[in-house]
């Protein structure tokens, strides 16, 4: 397994360096950083230099790197680094350079409990909590470093940067904290439309995520929809929620899921994913796009895009962005919004040849539209250029809404004689993953 684990700052300074096996040269952090910088974008998560295998993830701008000289397991390695990052986050509240520099002793402690000889040992926050003697040092709230810190990388599963949650930036070691638990149901949508707004392919990737600050880690019982069904039979139609596949965190006992639609959970501290699920069946897409392309003349094209929010009027999408790639031979493009448009912008990026249409707050049932007037360079005719328009991609987030209708019926804390009633926060979030309309 890992020979070393080190954490580097965005500039390549070593913040943490733990050598487990002493079978690799001391200079590996430099080797790693030099190689990582040769990539134009983000470096490959796995690469090898002189038969040294490097696995790394990027969190809060920092490189968390594991090295090995063996035939290591890439999936497991990346998972390990991810878990390590989660642990550090659980203990320190956030991951950034300043916090890690301040808490490096604590992180060495975490590392030593999590890995022995490079092999993972205990990686659950609540298991190593009793073994950790250092307290986390919180960063100065208004320090320059803090305000300048890079945005949390979108590398992680679900980006919690739009909806603030109290759970996000808190350490599990904080003794005087509220007794509470956060439950999030995230759903990411994959939809592919053809030009007549007919759905070609669609799926949902969802998960139930918990962030637990419950004192004493009491067992939980989580009940889901009664009409839940797992595994799809060929050609079967059912009104209920059908999950194609699901998997669970190891603290979850799913034996009763088929019968009672309930999960028994022994929650660890901090953040964990209770269940991942996948749905491939039909669902009604929350947004529909209707693109119309007209050739005005041999050098002019007009693109009109209508966007319809097909969900309940009580629900509000927090943002919806539409990207429209336009022909490379475009001389100029003028996006025009409707006259009464509010909280909307449309911009043409002449370098990337993309029109970005951004809508803040879109209420269910509403319709918006955008007209783009394109002028082409003389070298291309409208007829051939129109093929280069698209595909149109959408990004959005809709809070308190989920497409699959998977719901949490109740979350019960199964401890008798417990007088305090912990706070339970349940959120639903729907995001786009790949939401594309072909032209």
């Amino acid at each position, binding site marked *: 397994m890992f020979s070393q684990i080190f954490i580097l700052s965005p500039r390549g*300074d*070593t913040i*943490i*360096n733990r050598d*487990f*096996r*002493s*079978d690799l040269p001391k200079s590996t952090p430099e080797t790693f950083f030099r190689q990582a910088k040769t990539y134009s974008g983000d470096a490959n*998560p*796995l690469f*090898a230099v*002189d*038969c040294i*295998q490097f696995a790394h*993830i990027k969190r809060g701008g920092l490189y968390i790197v594991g090295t090995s*000289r*063996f*035939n*290591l*397991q*890439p*999936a*497991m390695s*990346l*998972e*390990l680094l991810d878990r390590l990052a989660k642990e550090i986050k659980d203990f320190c509240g956030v991951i950034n350079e300043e916090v890690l520099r301040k808490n490096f*002793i604590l992180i*060495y*402690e975490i590392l*030593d409990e999590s890995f*022995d*000889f490079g*092999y993972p040992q*205990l*990686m659950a926050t609540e298991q190593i909590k009793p073994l950790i*003697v250092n307290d986390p040092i919180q960063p100065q709230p208004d320090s320059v470093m803090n305000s300048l810190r890079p945005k949390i990388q979108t*590398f992680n*599963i*679900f980006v919690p940067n739009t909806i603030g949650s109290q759970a996000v930036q808190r350490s599990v070691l904080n003794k005087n904290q509220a007794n509470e638990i956060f439950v999030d149901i995230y759903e*990411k949508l*994959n939809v592919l439309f053809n030009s007549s707004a007919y759905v070609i*392919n669609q*799926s949902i*990737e*969802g998960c139930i995520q918990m962030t637990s600050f419950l004192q004493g880690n009491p067992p939980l019982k989580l009940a889901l929809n009664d009409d839940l069904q797992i595994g799809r039979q060929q050609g079967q139609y059912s009104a209920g929620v059908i999950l*194609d*596949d*699901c*998997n*669970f965190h*190891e603290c979850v006992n799913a034996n009763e899921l088929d019968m009672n639609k309930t999960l028994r959970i022994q929650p660890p501290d901090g953040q964990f*994913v209770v269940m*991942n699920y*996948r749905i*491939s069946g039909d669902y009604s897409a929350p947004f529909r796009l209707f693109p119309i392309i007209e050739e005005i003349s041999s050098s002019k094209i007009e693109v009109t895009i209508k966007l319809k929010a097909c969900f309940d009027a009580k629900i509000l999408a927090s943002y919806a962005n539409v990207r429209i790639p336009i022909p490379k031979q475009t001389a100029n493009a003028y996006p025009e919004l409707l006259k009464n448009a509010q909280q909307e912008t449309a911009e043409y990026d002449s370098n990337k040849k993309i029109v970005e249409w951004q809508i803040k707050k879109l209420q269910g049932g509403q319709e918006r539209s955008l007209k783009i007037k394109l002028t082409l360079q003389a070298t291309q005719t409208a007829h051939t250029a129109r093929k280069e328009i698209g*595909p149109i*991609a959408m990004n959005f987030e809709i809070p308190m809404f989920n497409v699959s209708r998977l719901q949490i019926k109740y979350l019960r804390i199964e401890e008798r004689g417990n007088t305090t009633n912990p706070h339970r926060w349940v959120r639903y979030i729907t995001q786009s*993953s*790949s939401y594309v309309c*072909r032209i």
Partner: protein
Amino acid sequence: MSRPSASASTSSSSRSSRSRYGKEVKELQDALNQNKIESKRDAIRKIIDAMTRGKDVSMLFPDVAKNMETSNLELKKLVYLYIINYAKIMPDLAVMAVNSFRKDARDKTNPFLRALAIRTMGCIRVKLITEYLLDPLKESIKDEDSYVRKTAAICISKLYDVSPELIEEQGLLKLLENLLNDGNAMVVANAVCALLIVQESKGTTMLQLNPYTIQKILTAMNECNEWGVIYCLDALAMYIPEDGKEAEAILERVSPRLNHNNPGVVLSACKIMMKFLDYLQNPETIRQNALKMTAPLISLLSLGKEPEIQYVALKNINLIIQKRPIIIEKDIKVFFCNFNDPIYIKLQKLEVLSKLANNDNIQQILHELKEYTQEVDVEFVRKSVRTIGRCAIKLEKAAEKCVTALWECLKTKVNYVVMESIIVIRDIFRKYPRKYEMILKDLCENLKSLEDPEAKASMIWIIGEYVDTIENADSLLANFSENFKDEPANVQHQILVAVMKLFLQRPNDGKELIHNLLKTATIECENPDLRDRAYIYWRMLSTDPELAKKIVFTERPTISDSSYTIENELLDKLIENIGNLSSVYTKKPESFVKKLRDVLNSKIADKIDDVYDQDQLMEGKPEDYSDQQGGQSTVYENNYDTSSQIQSQIQQSQIQQVSQKIDLLELDDNQPQQQQQQQPQIQTQIQTQIPTQSIQNIRIPFAEVLTANTPGSQTQVQGLSIETAFQKNGDKIVLDLKITNKTQDKTFSDFGIKFNKNPFKLQPDTIEIQCQPVFPGQTQIAQSLINTNGPAFEEPPQMPYKIQVALKTNLDVFYFFIPMSLSVLFSSTASITQQKFIELSQAQNIARKQEVLQIQIDPQRMKERLERNYFFLIGVRKDERGVELLSYAASLVNGMPLLVNVIHTPTAINLQLQVPHPTLMPLLYQAIGFILTLN
């Protein structure tokens, strides 16, 4: 933590900073020696901070080590951290710390303290210290607390890395095996893990897998954490079940792990599933078990996972479906690319899609692929086009649909799409010859934009292949040949082959092209492969064009999609490594793990490395072989290099300079004597050669003088092909004929031949040719003797010198021209003396010319060849620089004298030619070229 950089920075820094550094150290020392825990703790924090940043703080070792025996756990941990880092470079001081460790390891009250000591001791990789560790370690294996036992298990593997002999001597491995029986799952898992580590470095089986231990591991797997599960699964994967029943039982226990949300666990479980499925007999059980993997594998592709995990999953799915396609048959949609997938995911998905394609889903896949070809990312688009091609080759029934899709790609006129399509269509044409000619027209419209060499080479190959269908193939190929010299090797090769095909199919259109091309390829190209190929073609054409046709248009081995799959042996090896790096690299683990061992000069030098050495030997073989090949090819070059490099290049050559100094016209007095002395020797030499001359004359290459599609003059019969050449055979002239019948149903016989009037009055001895009747498809060789008593012809010979001939057969009369070389007409008797030579060279009405023959030939060989072909040496001169000038004379059958002065240089031959008539000049030059290059 790198010491050199730290010391470098201190040495290079200014004195003031050095003193500041010294001051800091002093302050830290003071703080460490105080009694207050807080100040000590802060000091060590600072020290470790410096250590992490690469500063050398090893000088503080004694001060830090003093604080080991503190009861404050936080301080103790910090001190341990420091000691682990510096123990290796200061082993003597580290021994001081041993007692403290031993004490902690026996602490009665706190199991965590015991475990901490054991863990830290294991990290001090110093042999000296290992010995002190053994006793506390043995005790900790039997510790009452499972946390200590699990730490001890790993500790054994750590120490094995430091001093394996000691660990074996002390029987610690036996104790480790006993831990497999431990009641605590985590301890069992760690024991499994430690045994696997030792096994890996030792190279022999450490973990005895039998039904009993398997049960232990299976039980432990249910209780330990996810990482423990992975260790257990990896151990199980090594087990070879006794029968199908056992395998099924194990699968029963393993399959629930597929629903874990840790991808490492899922892949390790898949590894066992894949391996054990081989042991099951009942097809239905196999099917059911295989299908259990479907959903979990697809779930690994969820966008919720990092793209890297998806990538690993795709790589593994690619392997798994090669072994058991049933696992993912229906769910093709999940492999459709999302617009926000990173490029490496998209490419990998295409790879999987092409494997999943079958006659039922091809329509759906093609539709999707067509969409991809319109995307922006060039690499993705190209791979999409290529995938369409692979589907066409894989699925014969769907090939037409795929070709239609590619046709559409061609029509887009987008440069890279077109280029990629052409490459793909080449393969399709190979797989389904002559089936999709309808797209040729559109293909030929895209010749301008072929920047990519592979696309260009493919296009040329296609033209060559359809040279009979594409009417303007000759002009297309001529265009491509224009820049022949500047093209990359693969394009040059294809041009050569295509022009060859053109010539063989349509000799009249390709004649000039092939001639020029072969010339360029043999003279100006540096690539030996290309040159050799050109020589081979040239020789094939000159000896037997029919055979050349057979060879060039030979049936090619068919291509199939299997060329993209991994051979079974490697596949099985990779299946064993599902989830590991080797499955991602699709390489055996040895290929990237062991090298490092060499690099690090590892101590594990026993069996495995022996095997590795053998591997190297094995690898050595192809190299030896290639050496042999290299040798062969130089032999070829030697043979070929002498070939004709006839280039009429008039330049002021060396010969002029030499002849200015040694003026042949005004010989010194003593020189003729020398030469006269030499002459008898030469003549005897010639005489001794004469008996063997009959076989030593050069063979003029056959020329195809009558092609099968040339009609006869009277009844327009076609299908007779004749190749012929005049040859010198001793002092006789003969005409060799090769008569081939290319008709289906006619037989040619009763051949007769007659020459038109010609300059040297050549005529056949008899009109009839002694030859058997030539039946359809047959070839006959015939010979006709020639004399020089024919009717006179007043015109001097012209270059090219050809003789018109009429050939009579039973069916028709054919007219054609036979090329003639002057070398055939040399008189075999020496008629020019030295005196005559001087006279002639002084004569007024003689044509003189300087020529250079660009060939490399050994001087002895040159002399021998010239003399063998009736050039008689008249004299040899040397100037003061040692340059040798040879004077030769030959006479033609009609008595005309030909004089040649020769200077040999390593790279070329300089010639001064003197002939009675200027029209003979090029003929003589050509004849010398033939003599020096042909055998």
